[in-house]
Protein backbone atom coordinates (compact mmCIF):
# COMPACT_ATOMS: atom_id res chain seq x y z
CA UNK A 1 0.00 0.00 0.00
CA UNK A 2 1.20 3.52 -0.68
CA UNK A 3 1.44 6.04 2.14
CA UNK A 4 0.44 8.94 -0.05
CA UNK A 5 -0.62 9.10 -3.64
CA UNK A 6 -1.71 11.77 -6.07
CA UNK A 7 -3.69 10.72 -9.12
CA UNK A 8 -3.89 13.11 -12.08
CA UNK A 9 -3.76 16.06 -9.73
CA UNK A 10 -3.86 19.50 -11.29
CA UNK A 11 -4.38 22.92 -9.83
CA UNK A 12 -5.67 26.01 -11.59
CA UNK A 13 -5.83 29.12 -9.39
CA UNK A 14 -8.73 31.56 -9.53
CA UNK A 15 -6.73 33.92 -11.71
CA UNK A 16 -6.56 31.14 -14.31
CA UNK A 17 -2.93 30.29 -13.65
CA UNK A 18 -2.17 26.57 -13.98
CA UNK A 19 0.23 25.79 -11.17
CA UNK A 20 0.15 21.99 -11.49
CA UNK A 21 -0.78 19.68 -14.35
CA UNK A 22 -1.41 15.94 -14.10
CA UNK A 23 0.78 15.07 -11.16
CA UNK A 24 0.96 11.34 -10.50
CA UNK A 25 3.08 10.39 -7.56
CA UNK A 26 3.11 7.42 -5.19
CA UNK A 27 5.08 7.52 -1.99
CA UNK A 28 5.80 4.36 -0.03
CA UNK A 29 5.54 4.20 3.76
CA UNK A 30 8.76 5.37 5.38
CA UNK A 31 10.11 6.76 2.17
CA UNK A 32 11.92 10.11 1.97
CA UNK A 33 10.83 11.85 -1.23
CA UNK A 34 12.06 15.25 -2.34
CA UNK A 35 10.23 17.65 -4.61
CA UNK A 36 12.98 19.50 -6.41
CA UNK A 37 12.57 22.35 -8.84
CA UNK A 38 13.15 26.03 -9.39
CA UNK A 39 11.15 28.57 -7.47
CA UNK A 40 7.63 28.96 -8.83
CA UNK A 41 7.38 25.47 -10.31
CA UNK A 42 4.52 24.46 -8.01
CA UNK A 43 6.27 22.55 -5.21
CA UNK A 44 4.54 24.39 -2.39
CA UNK A 45 1.22 24.10 -4.18
CA UNK A 46 1.60 20.33 -4.40
CA UNK A 47 2.64 20.13 -0.76
CA UNK A 48 -0.40 22.17 0.26
CA UNK A 49 -2.61 19.84 -1.74
CA UNK A 50 -1.13 16.93 0.20
CA UNK A 51 -1.66 18.81 3.48
CA UNK A 52 -5.21 19.74 2.54
CA UNK A 53 -4.87 23.54 2.33
CA UNK A 54 -5.71 23.54 -1.36
CA UNK A 55 -8.26 21.35 -3.08
CA UNK A 56 -6.93 20.05 -6.40
CA UNK A 57 -8.83 21.36 -9.41
CA UNK A 58 -8.91 17.85 -10.85
CA UNK A 59 -7.64 14.51 -9.63
CA UNK A 60 -7.53 12.75 -6.28
CA UNK A 61 -5.29 12.38 -3.27
CA UNK A 62 -5.14 9.08 -1.39
CA UNK A 63 -3.59 8.39 1.96
CA UNK A 64 -3.08 4.76 2.95
CA UNK A 65 -5.45 3.82 0.17
CA UNK A 66 -8.30 6.04 1.40
CA UNK A 67 -9.48 9.02 -0.62
CA UNK A 68 -8.70 12.19 1.36
CA UNK A 69 -9.14 14.70 -1.47
CA UNK A 70 -11.77 16.70 0.35
CA UNK A 71 -10.52 16.24 3.93
CA UNK A 72 -9.46 19.56 5.52
CA UNK A 73 -5.93 19.88 6.94
CA UNK A 74 -7.14 19.58 10.53
CA UNK A 75 -8.54 16.13 9.71
CA UNK A 76 -5.52 14.73 7.86
CA UNK A 77 -2.80 12.57 9.24
CA UNK A 78 -0.11 14.87 7.90
CA UNK A 79 2.03 17.46 9.65
CA UNK A 80 3.72 20.34 7.96
CA UNK A 81 7.01 22.12 8.65
CA UNK A 82 6.76 25.63 7.28
CA UNK A 83 9.47 27.62 5.60
CA UNK A 84 9.00 30.48 8.07
CA UNK A 85 8.62 27.96 10.94
CA UNK A 86 5.20 29.50 11.74
CA UNK A 87 5.65 29.05 15.47
CA UNK A 88 2.91 30.51 17.66
CA UNK A 89 4.55 33.66 19.02
CA UNK A 90 2.44 33.75 22.19
CA UNK A 91 3.18 30.17 23.25
CA UNK A 92 6.33 28.78 24.83
CA UNK A 93 8.42 26.08 23.21
CA UNK A 94 6.64 23.41 25.25
CA UNK A 95 3.19 24.85 24.53
CA UNK A 96 3.98 25.02 20.83
CA UNK A 97 4.96 21.37 20.80
CA UNK A 98 1.88 20.37 22.80
CA UNK A 99 -0.51 22.32 20.58
CA UNK A 100 -1.26 19.46 18.19
CA UNK A 101 -1.65 16.70 20.78
CA UNK A 102 -3.95 18.96 22.81
CA UNK A 103 -6.09 19.64 19.77
CA UNK A 104 -6.32 15.93 19.15
CA UNK A 105 -7.16 15.22 22.80
CA UNK A 106 -4.16 13.03 23.48
CA UNK A 107 -4.22 12.24 27.18
CA UNK A 108 -1.95 14.10 29.54
CA UNK A 109 0.66 11.46 30.32
CA UNK A 110 1.11 10.52 26.72
CA UNK A 111 1.40 14.19 25.82
CA UNK A 112 4.10 14.85 28.38
CA UNK A 113 5.97 11.72 27.31
CA UNK A 114 6.00 12.91 23.73
CA UNK A 115 7.00 16.41 24.77
CA UNK A 116 9.92 15.28 26.89
CA UNK A 117 11.15 12.81 24.34
CA UNK A 118 11.00 15.33 21.52
CA UNK A 119 12.65 18.06 23.57
CA UNK A 120 15.51 15.66 24.20
CA UNK A 121 15.66 14.58 20.58
CA UNK A 122 15.98 18.12 19.28
CA UNK A 123 18.14 19.18 22.21
CA UNK A 124 15.87 21.95 23.50
CA UNK A 125 15.27 20.76 27.08
CA UNK A 126 16.83 23.90 28.50
CA UNK A 127 14.59 26.13 26.43
CA UNK A 128 11.20 24.61 27.08
CA UNK A 129 9.70 27.68 28.77
CA UNK A 130 11.09 30.21 26.32
CA UNK A 131 9.04 32.11 23.77
CA UNK A 132 10.00 31.50 20.14
CA UNK A 133 11.42 34.98 19.58
CA UNK A 134 14.09 34.25 22.21
CA UNK A 135 15.48 31.36 20.13
CA UNK A 136 17.98 31.31 17.30
CA UNK A 137 16.90 30.35 13.78
CA UNK A 138 18.21 26.82 14.12
CA UNK A 139 16.44 26.33 17.43
CA UNK A 140 13.17 27.67 16.03
CA UNK A 141 13.52 25.24 13.15
CA UNK A 142 13.90 22.40 15.60
CA UNK A 143 10.84 23.51 17.58
CA UNK A 144 8.85 23.50 14.35
CA UNK A 145 10.09 20.01 13.65
CA UNK A 146 9.26 18.77 17.15
CA UNK A 147 5.82 20.40 16.93
CA UNK A 148 5.08 18.53 13.73
CA UNK A 149 6.40 15.24 15.11
CA UNK A 150 4.40 15.56 18.34
CA UNK A 151 1.35 14.72 16.26
CA UNK A 152 2.89 11.33 15.48
CA UNK A 153 1.88 11.91 11.87
CA UNK A 154 2.42 9.19 9.36
CA UNK A 155 3.46 11.78 6.79
CA UNK A 156 5.57 14.88 7.44
CA UNK A 157 5.59 17.61 4.81
CA UNK A 158 8.59 19.91 4.73
CA UNK A 159 8.49 23.19 2.80
CA UNK A 160 12.06 24.35 2.28
CA UNK A 161 12.74 23.99 5.99
CA UNK A 162 16.40 24.90 5.78
CA UNK A 163 16.26 27.90 3.48
CA UNK A 164 16.52 30.41 6.32
CA UNK A 165 19.57 28.83 7.92
CA UNK A 166 23.22 29.46 7.16
CA UNK A 167 25.20 26.83 5.27
CA UNK A 168 26.86 25.12 8.25
CA UNK A 169 23.67 24.82 10.26
CA UNK A 170 21.81 23.63 7.20
CA UNK A 171 24.00 20.57 6.93
CA UNK A 172 23.59 19.77 10.61
CA UNK A 173 19.80 20.11 10.64
CA UNK A 174 19.66 18.11 7.42
CA UNK A 175 21.34 15.20 9.19
CA UNK A 176 19.05 15.61 12.20
CA UNK A 177 15.97 15.43 10.02
CA UNK A 178 17.18 12.23 8.42
CA UNK A 179 18.01 10.81 11.85
CA UNK A 180 14.56 11.61 13.21
CA UNK A 181 12.95 10.14 10.15
CA UNK A 182 14.82 6.89 10.63
CA UNK A 183 13.93 6.84 14.30
CA UNK A 184 10.22 7.61 13.99
CA UNK A 185 9.76 5.97 10.62
CA UNK A 186 7.48 8.61 9.17
CA UNK A 187 7.04 9.17 5.48
CA UNK A 188 8.63 12.44 4.40
CA UNK A 189 7.88 14.72 1.50
CA UNK A 190 10.49 17.37 1.36
CA UNK A 191 10.39 20.47 -0.84
CA UNK A 192 13.59 22.16 -1.83
CA UNK A 193 15.12 24.07 -4.69
CA UNK A 194 18.61 23.07 -3.60
CA UNK A 195 19.77 20.12 -5.68
CA UNK A 196 22.56 19.10 -3.34
CA UNK A 197 20.06 18.92 -0.45
CA UNK A 198 17.80 16.74 -2.60
CA UNK A 199 20.60 14.41 -3.68
CA UNK A 200 21.98 14.05 -0.17
CA UNK A 201 18.74 13.37 1.68
CA UNK A 202 16.29 11.54 -0.51
CA UNK A 203 15.34 8.00 -1.31
CA UNK A 204 13.71 9.39 -4.40
CA UNK A 205 13.77 12.75 -6.11
CA UNK A 206 10.84 14.22 -8.01
CA UNK A 207 12.18 16.86 -10.38
CA UNK A 208 9.53 19.43 -11.29
CA UNK A 209 9.38 22.28 -13.74
CA UNK A 210 6.54 24.55 -14.75
CA UNK A 211 3.92 22.59 -12.82
CA UNK A 212 4.89 19.25 -14.37
CA UNK A 213 6.92 16.29 -13.21
CA UNK A 214 10.08 15.98 -15.30
CA UNK A 215 11.51 12.82 -13.81
CA UNK A 216 11.16 10.65 -10.74
CA UNK A 217 14.03 8.49 -9.57
CA UNK A 218 16.70 7.72 -7.00
CA UNK A 219 19.32 10.50 -6.61
CA UNK A 220 21.92 8.54 -8.63
CA UNK A 221 19.38 7.92 -11.31
CA UNK A 222 18.33 11.50 -11.86
CA UNK A 223 21.93 12.61 -11.77
CA UNK A 224 23.47 9.97 -13.97
CA UNK A 225 20.57 9.20 -16.26
CA UNK A 226 18.63 12.43 -16.71
CA UNK A 227 15.77 11.98 -19.13
CA UNK A 228 15.22 15.57 -20.09
CA UNK A 229 17.41 18.53 -20.84
CA UNK A 230 15.84 20.33 -17.90
CA UNK A 231 16.79 17.63 -15.41
CA UNK A 232 20.28 17.35 -16.81
CA UNK A 233 20.81 21.06 -16.54
CA UNK A 234 19.08 21.65 -13.19
CA UNK A 235 20.90 18.90 -11.31
CA UNK A 236 24.62 19.44 -11.48
CA UNK A 237 25.90 21.03 -14.63
CA UNK A 238 25.58 19.45 -18.02
CA UNK A 239 26.78 20.02 -21.53
CA UNK A 240 23.95 19.67 -24.00
CA UNK A 241 24.58 19.26 -27.70
CA UNK A 242 22.26 18.83 -30.64
CA UNK A 243 22.99 15.75 -32.70
CA UNK A 244 22.23 13.88 -35.90
CA UNK A 245 21.83 10.14 -35.75
CA UNK A 246 24.21 8.28 -38.02
CA UNK A 247 23.38 4.80 -36.88
CA UNK A 248 22.47 3.05 -33.60
CA UNK A 249 25.93 3.65 -32.17
CA UNK A 250 27.21 6.79 -33.84
CA UNK A 251 25.98 10.37 -33.72
CA UNK A 252 27.20 13.51 -35.48
CA UNK A 253 27.62 16.48 -33.07
CA UNK A 254 29.30 19.88 -33.07
CA UNK A 255 32.19 18.19 -31.26
CA UNK A 256 32.54 15.76 -34.11
CA UNK A 257 31.41 12.21 -34.73
CA UNK A 258 30.90 10.39 -31.43
CA UNK A 259 30.38 6.75 -30.60
CA UNK A 260 27.68 6.10 -28.03
CA UNK A 261 26.83 2.94 -26.13
CA UNK A 262 23.20 3.91 -25.40
CA UNK A 263 20.77 3.63 -28.26
CA UNK A 264 19.55 7.05 -29.39
CA UNK A 265 16.02 7.54 -28.11
CA UNK A 266 13.77 8.47 -31.07
CA UNK A 267 12.36 11.43 -29.10
CA UNK A 268 15.74 12.64 -27.90
CA UNK A 269 16.73 16.13 -28.94
CA UNK A 270 20.18 16.41 -27.36
CA UNK A 271 23.11 14.44 -26.13
CA UNK A 272 24.30 15.25 -22.67
CA UNK A 273 27.58 14.80 -20.86
CA UNK A 274 28.84 16.09 -17.55
CA UNK A 275 32.02 18.15 -17.06
CA UNK A 276 33.58 15.40 -14.95
CA UNK A 277 33.03 12.81 -17.70
CA UNK A 278 35.95 14.14 -19.76
CA UNK A 279 39.00 11.88 -19.60
CA UNK A 280 42.35 13.54 -20.02
CA UNK A 281 45.64 12.03 -21.08
CA UNK A 282 44.04 9.59 -23.50
CA UNK A 283 44.66 10.08 -27.21
CA UNK A 284 43.90 6.60 -28.52
CA UNK A 285 40.53 5.17 -29.62
CA UNK A 286 37.40 7.12 -30.57
CA UNK A 287 35.60 10.13 -29.15
CA UNK A 288 38.73 12.27 -28.85
CA UNK A 289 37.99 15.98 -28.85
CA UNK A 290 40.47 18.81 -29.10
CA UNK A 291 39.42 22.40 -28.64
CA UNK A 292 40.72 25.83 -27.70
CA UNK A 293 40.12 26.88 -24.11
CA UNK A 294 38.20 30.14 -23.84
CA UNK A 295 38.09 30.51 -20.09
CA UNK A 296 39.42 28.82 -16.99
CA UNK A 297 38.39 29.07 -13.36
CA UNK A 298 40.34 27.40 -10.58
CA UNK A 299 38.00 25.66 -8.13
CA UNK A 300 40.43 23.97 -5.78
CA UNK A 301 39.73 20.32 -6.40
CA UNK A 302 39.69 20.88 -10.16
CA UNK A 303 39.85 23.63 -12.74
CA UNK A 304 36.75 24.55 -14.66
CA UNK A 305 37.57 24.83 -18.37
CA UNK A 306 35.28 26.39 -20.95
CA UNK A 307 35.56 25.48 -24.59
CA UNK A 308 33.60 26.80 -27.48
CA UNK A 309 33.05 25.14 -30.81
CA UNK A 310 30.75 26.10 -33.64
CA UNK A 311 27.19 25.02 -32.80
CA UNK A 312 28.11 24.34 -29.18
CA UNK A 313 29.01 27.48 -27.29
CA UNK A 314 30.42 27.22 -23.84
CA UNK A 315 30.95 23.55 -23.04
CA UNK A 316 32.43 22.92 -19.62
CA UNK A 317 34.83 20.28 -18.40
CA UNK A 318 36.70 19.61 -15.20
CA UNK A 319 40.48 19.41 -15.44
CA UNK A 320 41.61 17.54 -12.36
CA UNK A 321 44.75 19.65 -11.80
CA UNK A 322 45.72 23.25 -11.14
CA UNK A 323 45.02 26.05 -13.57
CA UNK A 324 48.70 26.64 -14.37
CA UNK A 325 49.29 23.29 -16.05
CA UNK A 326 46.61 23.84 -18.65
CA UNK A 327 47.77 24.83 -22.11
CA UNK A 328 46.00 26.82 -24.79
CA UNK A 329 43.88 23.91 -25.88
CA UNK A 330 42.39 20.80 -24.30
CA UNK A 331 42.33 17.28 -25.64
CA UNK A 332 40.04 14.83 -23.92
CA UNK A 333 37.98 11.72 -24.47
CA UNK A 334 34.25 11.28 -23.91
CA UNK A 335 33.58 7.67 -22.83
CA UNK A 336 30.71 6.32 -24.99
CA UNK A 337 28.80 4.97 -21.96
CA UNK A 338 28.71 8.44 -20.37
CA UNK A 339 26.92 10.05 -23.26
CA UNK A 340 23.16 10.28 -22.56
CA UNK A 341 20.24 11.12 -24.79
CA UNK A 342 17.74 13.60 -23.39
CA UNK A 343 14.35 14.92 -24.48
CA UNK A 344 12.95 18.41 -24.08
CA UNK A 345 14.13 21.92 -24.66
CA UNK A 346 17.12 23.87 -23.45
CA UNK A 347 15.81 26.58 -21.14
Amino acid at each position, binding site marked *: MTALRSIDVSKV*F*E*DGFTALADINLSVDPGEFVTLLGPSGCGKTTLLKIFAGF*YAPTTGRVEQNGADVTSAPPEKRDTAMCFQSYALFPHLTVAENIEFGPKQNRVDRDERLDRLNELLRQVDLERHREKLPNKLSGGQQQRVALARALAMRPSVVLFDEPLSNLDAKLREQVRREIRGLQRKFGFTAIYVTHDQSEALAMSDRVVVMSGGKVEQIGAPEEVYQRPETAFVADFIGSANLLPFDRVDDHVVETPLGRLTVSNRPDPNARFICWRPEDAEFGVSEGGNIVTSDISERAYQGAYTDLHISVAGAPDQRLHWPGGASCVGQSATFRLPPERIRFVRGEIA
Partner: protein
Amino acid sequence: MVSLADSGATVAPKKPTRRAGALNRFLMIVLMTIVAIWLIVPFSMAVLWSLVDPETGWNYPDLLPPSLTHLRWVEVWTTTALPQAIANSYMLAPTVAVVTLILASPTAYCFARYDFAGKGLAQLATLLPLVVPGFVLAIFFSSLIFSLGIYSRFLSILMAHCVLFLPYAIRIMTVSFGQVRQDLIDAARDLGASPLAVFRAAYMPALLPGILASLIIVFIQSIEEFAIAFIVGAPNFTTIPSILYSYLGYNFIRPNAAVVSLILVVPNVLLMLGLERLLKSANPAQTGVKG
Protein backbone atom coordinates in the same frame (compact mmCIF):
# COMPACT_ATOMS: atom_id res chain seq x y z
CA MET B 1 -9.49 57.86 14.50
CA VAL B 2 -6.41 57.65 16.64
CA SER B 3 -4.54 55.52 14.20
CA LEU B 4 -5.39 57.37 11.05
CA ALA B 5 -1.74 58.03 10.52
CA ASP B 6 -1.11 54.31 10.49
CA SER B 7 -4.07 53.43 8.37
CA GLY B 8 -2.83 55.82 5.74
CA ALA B 9 0.45 53.99 5.73
CA THR B 10 -0.97 50.49 5.57
CA VAL B 11 1.00 47.65 4.13
CA ALA B 12 1.19 47.08 0.41
CA PRO B 13 -1.77 45.09 -0.88
CA LYS B 14 -1.36 41.36 -0.49
CA LYS B 15 -2.27 38.86 -3.12
CA PRO B 16 -6.01 38.26 -3.40
CA THR B 17 -7.15 35.54 -1.07
CA ARG B 18 -7.41 32.05 -2.37
CA ARG B 19 -10.69 31.43 -0.61
CA ALA B 20 -12.54 34.34 -2.24
CA GLY B 21 -15.26 32.04 -3.37
CA ALA B 22 -19.00 32.02 -3.57
CA LEU B 23 -19.29 32.53 0.17
CA ASN B 24 -17.41 35.80 0.04
CA ARG B 25 -19.48 37.04 -2.84
CA PHE B 26 -22.67 36.17 -1.00
CA LEU B 27 -21.52 37.79 2.23
CA MET B 28 -20.49 40.83 0.28
CA ILE B 29 -23.85 41.28 -1.36
CA VAL B 30 -25.63 40.91 1.98
CA LEU B 31 -23.25 43.30 3.62
CA MET B 32 -23.40 45.86 0.84
CA THR B 33 -27.17 45.86 1.09
CA ILE B 34 -27.07 46.37 4.82
CA VAL B 35 -24.50 49.09 4.44
CA ALA B 36 -26.46 50.85 1.74
CA ILE B 37 -29.38 50.97 4.15
CA TRP B 38 -26.93 51.86 6.89
CA LEU B 39 -25.59 54.96 5.16
CA ILE B 40 -27.75 55.76 2.18
CA VAL B 41 -31.18 55.72 3.83
CA PRO B 42 -30.21 57.97 6.76
CA PHE B 43 -28.43 60.46 4.56
CA SER B 44 -31.16 60.65 1.96
CA MET B 45 -33.72 61.16 4.72
CA ALA B 46 -31.63 64.08 5.95
CA VAL B 47 -31.47 65.58 2.47
CA LEU B 48 -35.23 65.14 2.00
CA TRP B 49 -36.02 66.70 5.35
CA SER B 50 -33.87 69.69 4.54
CA LEU B 51 -35.92 70.21 1.37
CA VAL B 52 -39.39 69.79 2.86
CA ASP B 53 -41.79 72.51 1.81
CA PRO B 54 -42.94 74.37 4.93
CA GLU B 55 -46.36 74.88 3.31
CA THR B 56 -47.22 71.21 2.90
CA GLY B 57 -44.89 69.61 5.44
CA TRP B 58 -44.07 65.90 5.46
CA ASN B 59 -46.56 63.99 7.52
CA TYR B 60 -47.43 60.41 8.20
CA PRO B 61 -48.25 58.39 6.12
CA ASP B 62 -46.54 60.03 3.11
CA LEU B 63 -43.53 57.99 2.07
CA LEU B 64 -41.92 61.00 0.42
CA PRO B 65 -42.48 64.71 1.00
CA PRO B 66 -45.31 65.96 -1.25
CA SER B 67 -43.24 68.88 -2.54
CA LEU B 68 -39.63 69.98 -2.30
CA THR B 69 -38.14 73.42 -2.06
CA HIS B 70 -34.90 75.10 -1.12
CA LEU B 71 -36.79 77.65 0.96
CA ARG B 72 -35.76 75.98 4.18
CA TRP B 73 -32.14 76.63 3.42
CA VAL B 74 -32.84 80.28 2.72
CA GLU B 75 -34.91 80.57 5.84
CA VAL B 76 -32.36 78.97 8.12
CA TRP B 77 -29.66 81.07 6.60
CA THR B 78 -31.49 84.38 6.95
CA THR B 79 -33.36 84.00 10.21
CA THR B 80 -31.05 82.06 12.51
CA ALA B 81 -27.57 82.51 13.93
CA LEU B 82 -26.21 79.93 11.52
CA PRO B 83 -24.05 82.34 9.44
CA GLN B 84 -22.43 83.62 12.62
CA ALA B 85 -21.92 80.04 13.85
CA ILE B 86 -20.31 79.06 10.57
CA ALA B 87 -18.05 82.07 10.74
CA ASN B 88 -17.10 81.19 14.31
CA SER B 89 -16.44 77.52 13.56
CA TYR B 90 -14.43 78.22 10.45
CA MET B 91 -12.36 80.84 12.21
CA LEU B 92 -11.76 78.68 15.23
CA ALA B 93 -10.86 75.43 13.50
CA PRO B 94 -7.94 76.61 11.33
CA THR B 95 -6.48 78.48 14.27
CA VAL B 96 -6.77 75.39 16.44
CA ALA B 97 -5.18 73.28 13.68
CA VAL B 98 -2.15 75.54 13.31
CA VAL B 99 -1.58 76.14 17.02
CA THR B 100 -1.95 72.42 17.79
CA LEU B 101 0.58 71.54 15.12
CA ILE B 102 3.06 74.05 16.50
CA LEU B 103 2.62 72.75 20.04
CA ALA B 104 2.78 69.11 18.99
CA SER B 105 5.89 69.22 16.81
CA PRO B 106 8.65 69.55 19.44
CA THR B 107 7.18 66.72 21.51
CA ALA B 108 6.73 64.55 18.44
CA TYR B 109 10.31 65.27 17.37
CA CYS B 110 11.48 64.25 20.81
CA PHE B 111 9.49 60.99 20.75
CA ALA B 112 10.70 60.10 17.28
CA ARG B 113 14.38 60.90 17.61
CA TYR B 114 15.39 60.57 21.27
CA ASP B 115 15.40 57.63 23.60
CA PHE B 116 15.03 58.38 27.27
CA ALA B 117 13.86 56.75 30.47
CA GLY B 118 10.10 56.89 30.84
CA LYS B 119 9.43 57.49 27.17
CA GLY B 120 6.71 54.85 27.06
CA LEU B 121 4.96 56.44 30.01
CA ALA B 122 5.30 59.90 28.48
CA GLN B 123 3.75 58.69 25.24
CA LEU B 124 0.92 57.11 27.16
CA ALA B 125 0.38 60.36 29.08
CA THR B 126 -0.16 62.26 25.83
CA LEU B 127 -3.34 60.23 25.42
CA LEU B 128 -4.86 61.67 28.62
CA PRO B 129 -7.18 64.14 26.85
CA LEU B 130 -8.77 61.22 25.03
CA VAL B 131 -9.69 59.36 28.18
CA VAL B 132 -11.22 62.19 30.20
CA PRO B 133 -14.94 62.32 29.40
CA GLY B 134 -15.61 65.37 27.22
CA PHE B 135 -18.26 66.98 29.36
CA VAL B 136 -16.20 66.66 32.53
CA LEU B 137 -13.37 68.39 30.74
CA ALA B 138 -15.73 71.04 29.38
CA ILE B 139 -17.47 71.89 32.64
CA PHE B 140 -14.43 72.08 34.84
CA PHE B 141 -12.42 73.81 32.20
CA SER B 142 -15.09 76.49 32.14
CA SER B 143 -14.90 76.63 35.91
CA LEU B 144 -11.14 76.96 35.64
CA ILE B 145 -11.23 79.86 33.21
CA PHE B 146 -13.76 81.66 35.37
CA SER B 147 -11.45 81.50 38.30
CA LEU B 148 -8.52 82.55 36.11
CA GLY B 149 -10.59 85.46 34.86
CA ILE B 150 -10.32 84.70 31.18
CA TYR B 151 -13.36 86.12 29.47
CA SER B 152 -12.65 85.62 25.77
CA ARG B 153 -14.79 82.70 24.66
CA PHE B 154 -12.79 82.31 21.48
CA LEU B 155 -9.51 82.12 23.37
CA SER B 156 -10.94 79.68 25.92
CA ILE B 157 -12.28 77.27 23.32
CA LEU B 158 -9.08 77.61 21.35
CA MET B 159 -7.03 76.56 24.38
CA ALA B 160 -9.28 73.64 25.24
CA HIS B 161 -9.43 72.40 21.66
CA CYS B 162 -5.67 72.51 21.29
CA VAL B 163 -5.20 70.35 24.36
CA LEU B 164 -8.02 68.03 23.36
CA PHE B 165 -6.58 67.37 19.89
CA LEU B 166 -2.88 67.39 20.76
CA PRO B 167 -2.87 63.57 21.04
CA TYR B 168 -3.77 63.20 17.36
CA ALA B 169 -1.21 65.74 16.20
CA ILE B 170 1.54 64.30 18.39
CA ARG B 171 0.85 60.78 17.18
CA ILE B 172 0.82 61.74 13.50
CA MET B 173 3.90 63.94 13.74
CA THR B 174 5.81 61.27 15.69
CA VAL B 175 5.27 58.87 12.80
CA SER B 176 6.37 61.58 10.36
CA PHE B 177 9.52 62.50 12.25
CA GLY B 178 10.29 58.79 12.45
CA GLN B 179 10.27 58.67 8.66
CA VAL B 180 12.94 61.32 8.31
CA ARG B 181 15.95 59.40 7.14
CA GLN B 182 19.18 59.93 9.00
CA ASP B 183 21.22 59.05 5.91
CA LEU B 184 19.62 61.94 4.03
CA ILE B 185 20.41 64.32 6.88
CA ASP B 186 23.99 63.06 6.95
CA ALA B 187 24.33 63.28 3.19
CA ALA B 188 23.01 66.84 3.13
CA ARG B 189 25.39 67.89 5.88
CA ASP B 190 28.24 66.08 4.23
CA LEU B 191 27.55 68.11 1.12
CA GLY B 192 27.85 71.28 3.18
CA ALA B 193 24.18 72.23 3.49
CA SER B 194 23.10 74.95 5.89
CA PRO B 195 20.59 73.98 8.60
CA LEU B 196 17.79 75.45 6.50
CA ALA B 197 18.91 73.49 3.45
CA VAL B 198 19.13 70.32 5.54
CA PHE B 199 15.59 70.93 6.73
CA ARG B 200 14.32 71.40 3.20
CA ALA B 201 16.16 68.44 1.77
CA ALA B 202 15.79 65.85 4.50
CA TYR B 203 12.92 66.86 6.77
CA MET B 204 10.38 68.57 4.58
CA PRO B 205 9.60 65.69 2.18
CA ALA B 206 9.02 63.28 5.04
CA LEU B 207 7.07 65.74 7.18
CA LEU B 208 4.78 67.32 4.63
CA PRO B 209 2.15 64.54 4.47
CA GLY B 210 2.08 64.35 8.26
CA ILE B 211 1.71 68.10 8.60
CA LEU B 212 -1.21 68.15 6.20
CA ALA B 213 -2.81 65.10 7.82
CA SER B 214 -2.48 66.65 11.25
CA LEU B 215 -3.93 69.98 10.09
CA ILE B 216 -6.90 68.32 8.40
CA ILE B 217 -7.71 65.95 11.22
CA VAL B 218 -7.51 68.58 13.92
CA PHE B 219 -9.54 70.94 11.74
CA ILE B 220 -12.30 68.37 11.30
CA GLN B 221 -12.30 67.47 14.98
CA SER B 222 -12.50 71.09 16.00
CA ILE B 223 -15.42 71.80 13.67
CA GLU B 224 -17.28 68.79 15.07
CA GLU B 225 -16.48 69.24 18.75
CA PHE B 226 -19.60 69.85 20.79
CA ALA B 227 -18.99 69.54 24.55
CA ILE B 228 -16.49 72.35 25.01
CA ALA B 229 -17.91 74.61 22.32
CA PHE B 230 -21.33 74.27 23.92
CA ILE B 231 -20.43 74.53 27.61
CA VAL B 232 -17.71 77.15 27.31
CA GLY B 233 -19.17 79.07 24.38
CA ALA B 234 -22.84 79.19 25.32
CA PRO B 235 -24.71 81.34 24.94
CA ASN B 236 -22.62 84.06 23.28
CA PHE B 237 -20.28 82.12 21.08
CA THR B 238 -22.13 79.57 18.94
CA THR B 239 -20.55 77.01 16.67
CA ILE B 240 -22.24 74.75 14.14
CA PRO B 241 -22.70 71.78 16.56
CA SER B 242 -24.25 74.08 19.18
CA ILE B 243 -26.80 75.29 16.62
CA LEU B 244 -27.53 71.71 15.64
CA TYR B 245 -28.01 70.82 19.29
CA SER B 246 -30.47 73.65 19.72
CA TYR B 247 -32.63 72.12 16.98
CA LEU B 248 -32.30 68.60 18.31
CA GLY B 249 -32.82 69.15 22.03
CA TYR B 250 -35.95 70.35 23.75
CA ASN B 251 -36.79 72.49 20.72
CA PHE B 252 -36.86 69.85 18.01
CA ILE B 253 -37.17 71.39 14.52
CA ARG B 254 -36.46 68.59 12.13
CA PRO B 255 -35.98 70.46 8.81
CA ASN B 256 -33.65 72.98 10.41
CA ALA B 257 -31.68 70.19 12.03
CA ALA B 258 -31.43 68.54 8.61
CA VAL B 259 -29.97 71.68 7.05
CA VAL B 260 -27.44 72.16 9.83
CA SER B 261 -26.46 68.47 9.85
CA LEU B 262 -25.65 68.61 6.17
CA ILE B 263 -23.70 71.84 6.55
CA LEU B 264 -21.71 70.20 9.34
CA VAL B 265 -20.98 66.84 7.78
CA VAL B 266 -20.56 67.37 4.05
CA PRO B 267 -17.40 69.53 4.09
CA ASN B 268 -15.82 67.14 6.57
CA VAL B 269 -16.51 64.11 4.42
CA LEU B 270 -14.96 65.88 1.44
CA LEU B 271 -11.92 66.83 3.49
CA MET B 272 -11.62 63.27 4.75
CA LEU B 273 -11.67 61.91 1.20
CA GLY B 274 -9.02 64.44 0.24
CA LEU B 275 -6.92 63.33 3.17
CA GLU B 276 -7.17 59.69 2.12
CA ARG B 277 -5.97 60.62 -1.37
CA LEU B 278 -3.18 62.66 0.05
CA LEU B 279 -1.89 59.91 2.30
CA LYS B 280 -2.06 57.35 -0.48
CA SER B 281 -0.19 59.48 -2.97
CA ALA B 282 2.34 60.68 -0.44
CA ASN B 283 3.35 57.26 0.76
CA PRO B 284 5.30 55.78 -2.15
CA ALA B 285 7.59 58.80 -2.05
CA GLN B 286 8.54 57.79 1.48
CA THR B 287 9.58 54.26 0.81
CA GLY B 288 13.27 53.89 0.39
CA VAL B 289 15.87 51.39 1.43
CA LYS B 290 15.73 50.70 5.12
CA GLY B 291 18.66 50.86 7.52
